[in-house]
């Protein structure tokens, strides 16, 4: 069920966004699993501007559009996490992994549970705002642009850049929520398409 306490929900979202800023939640375990953590390749995980909206863009969104953008981003990351964890469970009984990597898998599983809770709070806050007269925005399906098939190295690079960008995006989300807390968030504006 959803809390009807706006300040409580906002506080929880802020707390969750702050936690999610740490690369220890997602990117680092991912790099450990892929063997990139102690390698020069870690430096290649630079965020790509196209992956997530900038803080400035987020600030310009209405609250409803902001929550919707946040929800879509979490969905994207949750889909990736689900795919990773699924391959782990399939191979778990015949795969030999080092303790550090075993812990990394656990961290990813924990992050998935955390993100589900995060997403639930977003839903509750959006519902609360809807009830207070803001009109609901349809969920924007992210555009799926066809790209040439990537090999595993390219997929790893793309994913680590996405996760790096996601942690920075969480920083931006925290900033926006701070402004809401201070009562200076934007109330209504036409919402731009989710850039991908």
């Amino acid at each position, binding site marked *: 069920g959803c809390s009807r306490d706006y300040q409580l929900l906002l506080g929880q979202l802020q707390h969750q966004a702050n936690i999610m800023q740490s690369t220890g939640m997602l990117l680092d375990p991912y790099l450990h699993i892929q*063997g990139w953590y102690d390698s020069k390749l870690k430096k290649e995980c630079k965020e790509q501007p196209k992956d997530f909206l900038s803080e400035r863009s987020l600030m310009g969104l209405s609250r409803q559009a902001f929550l919707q953008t946040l929800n879509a981003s979490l969905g994207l990351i949750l889909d990736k996490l689900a795919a*990773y964890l699924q391959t782990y469970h399939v191979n778990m009984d015949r795969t030999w992994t080092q303790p550090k990597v075993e812990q990394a898998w656990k961290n990813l599983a924990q992050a998935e549970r955390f993100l589900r809770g995060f997403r639930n709070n977003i839903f509750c806050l959006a519902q609360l705002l809807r009830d207070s007269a803001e009109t609901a925005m349809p969920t924007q399906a992210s555009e799926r642009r066809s790209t040439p098939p990537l090999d595993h*190295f390219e997929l790893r690079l793309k994913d680590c850049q996405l996760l790096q960008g996601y942690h920075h995006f969480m920083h931006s989300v925290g900033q926006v929520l701070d402004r809401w807390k201070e009562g200076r968030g934007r109330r209504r504006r036409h919402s731009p398409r989710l850039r991908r």
Partner: protein
Amino acid sequence: SLEFAINLTYQRFSLLWSVRGLLDHQEIQMNFQIQISRINESNVIWTGNYITTVKSKESVHWSWESELPLECATHFVRIRSQVDDAQFPELRSWSKWTSWKEIRVLKPLSPGQTFSLFPKDNLVEAGSNMTVCYVSRSHGSEIACFLETEEIHEEEALTPHVTVFTLRNVSFLRPTGTNMHCRQKSTNELKGGLVIYVSKILEDPKNFSCETQDLKTLNCTWDPVAVTAPVNLHPSKRVQPPESYALYESFSQETRVCEHNTWCTWQVAEDSQDEYNFTLRLQNIFRERSVNLAFNLTHRVHPRPPFNFFLESVNSTNARVSWKVYPLRKPSTLLCRVECLQDEHVMEQQVNVSIGMQGEYLLSGLEPDTQYLARVCCAYGNHLWKWSDWVGQRFTTLDVAPS
């Protein structure tokens, strides 16, 4: 005419050709000599013979695996033939060579791409050598490549745009593969990379054992083999399946593919023999392992635990226990053991009772007003292999009535 098909997953190309001039339904043994060149026709790298029986109107099929990724060099192939058949001793002279057939992977670099490493997402066996190469639009001398964190020095410029590395004795590091990448020396810019999946060398399955609960179904088990299935975090991208298991029985000459990697069941035919000789075959794309087990079915009965265990007529010194057992296919008797335990002290009253479908026993000499655990387990009477699990119940004897 010579036709070919390229399989980049296995770095292999297949050739298909036909032989003209055979009469209908004629079969003739022929020897085909095949030559393969690389980069240019004059650079012959492999010559081999392929002897096969050719049938009229049927094509001949042959394939060749390249140690060098096919994306990195154009290959050329030609063949010639010779009749190698006792029916036609006079036709032993070699034919002319076919013209060279060019085998090229079109566009190893996609539009806008300046560099790429090959083979992509390959699976190799631990301890093997592997050839990796890169194609670069700019000359290769300014590129440095690393296997994990170590720079690779053993490289050879095949052409100004293609450089080849030989990775020796590739070792297993982690299920998600070993990482290789290359950088521009001057700018340290990442040019590209590879994931090399390394599978441990298949070991023989250990502790292979079979037993039956009912003489109808055999359940074979073995220890999990420490094989590393490549963990590919991108399920959409296939990496060859790890390994497969199968049971082969030599008397019946039947084979059953097993779905699980630590156990498998085998249905015993109604009128089949008692003697069995099983081979457990474990296979992956690199090698096969097997282990044998011969036994008499009736020497491998591990019955299910008894059921309907009841305690009746409990008084201050006696108690009657009864139980049922699951039937076995063949008419047979089960040996059952009855125990009576008091707290941690094992006051054992054990007896072997041969029974058909139903068993019962009177426990006597018990202490009044005392708690006991009565339990029973059974084994196959004809040949004891394993006792079943216990089933039992706690009870307290009655107090002695005041006299």
